[in-house]
């Protein structure tokens, strides 16, 4: 087994033994269950309510897990000095960072799969049947996973340079800003100031654009996501994660463990 896979599997094992993870999954499943209740009091739009609330639950709880586990990925190893026994073995620092990233991503993918399964159970309970058309929700879930991949990348980067609390604050702020980037750019264009317009354009291209990944409303109305958007968002996430991981590795390569 490669060292990256060893570190990834160890990170996965560490994450799944965190009790907070189970609490979050339980809450997410409860909320998805509660969506049935909300749907039942919303005549005619039960399914839309269920899909919207279900996807929001998967997204929010996935985000919480990504941030709260992600911010400790590296800083906890340094703080507890477990890093000494790992880096004194024939493990390159880049392998450690990539392994940590993939380990948490695996954890999030499995948790998202569990929450998605819970969502389909709730959908089946409400509709008393499931059809192939319902699989369109998986496209939105895939976008949520891409968002989480970006969030883990951000959390990991901050984890290499800052304390867990600051890392959480930075990651969360960037997530919020990233969701508002389309609006920020529109605002810049509307001001009529060339400087503000350029400034917002820089932010738009520089920061991770999370709003591109929001497809809940579309799939809730049964609309499929166009293949080009699936491809474009996948490539965007891949490229951005690549940049975040490269930056994390560069910083971590220079890091000293006193």
């Amino acid at each position: 087994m490669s060292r990256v896979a060893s570190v990834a599997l160890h990170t996965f094992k560490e994450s799944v033994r965190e009790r907070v993870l189970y609490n979050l999954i339980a809450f997410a499943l409860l909320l998805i269950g509660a969506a049935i209740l909300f749907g039942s009091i919303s005549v005619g739009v039960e399914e839309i309510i269920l899909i919207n609330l279900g996807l929001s639950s998967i997204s929010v709880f996935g985000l919480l897990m990504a941030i709260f586990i992600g911010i400790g990925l590296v800083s906890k190893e340094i703080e507890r000095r477990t890093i000494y026994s790992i880096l004194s073995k024939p493990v390159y620092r880049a392998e450690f960072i990539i392994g940590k990233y993939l380990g948490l991503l695996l954890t999030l993918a499995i948790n998202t799969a569990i929450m998605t399964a819970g969502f389909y159970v709730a959908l089946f309970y409400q509709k008393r049947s499931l059809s192939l058309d319902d699989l369109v929700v998986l496209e939105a879930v895939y976008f949520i996973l891409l968002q989480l991949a970006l969030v883990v990348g951000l959390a990991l980067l901050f984890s290499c340079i800052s304390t867990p609390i600051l890392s959480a604050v930075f990651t969360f702020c960037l997530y919020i800003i990233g969701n508002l980037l389309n609006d920020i750019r529109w605002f810049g264009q509307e001001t009529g100031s060339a400087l503000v317009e350029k400034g917002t354009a820089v932010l738009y291209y520089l920061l991770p654009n999370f709003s591109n990944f929001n497809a809940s409303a579309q799939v809730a109305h049964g609309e499929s996501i166009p293949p080009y958007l699936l491809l474009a968002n996948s490539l965007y996430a891949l490229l951005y994660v690549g940049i975040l991981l490269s930056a994390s590795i560069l910083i971590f390569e220079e890091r000293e463990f006193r």
Partner: protein
Amino acid sequence: MLAVETHDLTKDYPVGFFRKRSKRALDGLSLRVEPGEVFGLLGPNGAGKSTTLKILLRLVFPTSGTAQILGRELHDVSMHARLGYLPENPYFYDHLSAGEFLNYAGELFGLEAAVRKQRVERLLERLGLAASRDVPLRKFSKGMVQRVGIAQALINEPELIFLDEPMSGLDPLGRREVRDLILELKAQGKTVFFSTHILTDAEMLCDRVAILNGGRLQGCGDLREILRLGVAATEVVLDNPSPAILKELSPFARSVVWTGELARLEIPEEPDVARALNVALRLGAKIVSLNPVKMSLEDYFLARIEDAPGTASPDDLAAVGRERRGAR
């Protein structure tokens, strides 16, 4: 090929938050460790022992100077496959059991599953952890964690083992076991490089020692040479000598200590020993024994720490011994 070689290794750490200054943790350390020897890095707390080990393991980077391990440069991480390292006050993953952690360590060395299984079992057995193999590490005592740390340092059967304060946190039995283990590793032809501030451990284990103080090398050499050359006095033991005999011998002796019926006279000057013996025999004293009072490692250590706060050059061993004899 040397096991470890350092040239003018220096490390400055930045200190201060607003006004950054640098604090020198290690100052021009030059060392040579031969393969197959047990080498002790001694020094008080803050002497630079852990910094030296961390530089060698690439956990911190030297400000200047160079070092090679097993003939390879420090940046060559693949060389770590031939090393073992026990950090000072180790801490491992709470959520893993000892068996799981050792297995993980084996994975990082790229060991096959069957080999890992066999080595994990053997090390757990050897370090007295077999009964606790499935207990989470968070429930381990400090001494047990230290044993796990030693086990993970040996999982790859390394040629060179770095141990940072290996006896720390161990009870007397545990210390004895670790001492035996180090001697066992030496018998297998492995090089052991360990840091300690417990001098008795070093005295029992080391072939050679280096003494660090304030980041500077105060002395380095063969321990047997240090102790052999450092004969500080001769002890003449007499069986219940009369006050008249003691009075005759008092000009030669530095001190007289009574232990029951025995009087122990410490004679500092070598020529005086023969004179004192002649006097004792002439007066009919019963001589029980004649023992050289060797300088202990502690004496040597304290002498280096007290005498040479500023110099950084390694001492020649013989010179150290002669220097001590000359001082008598």
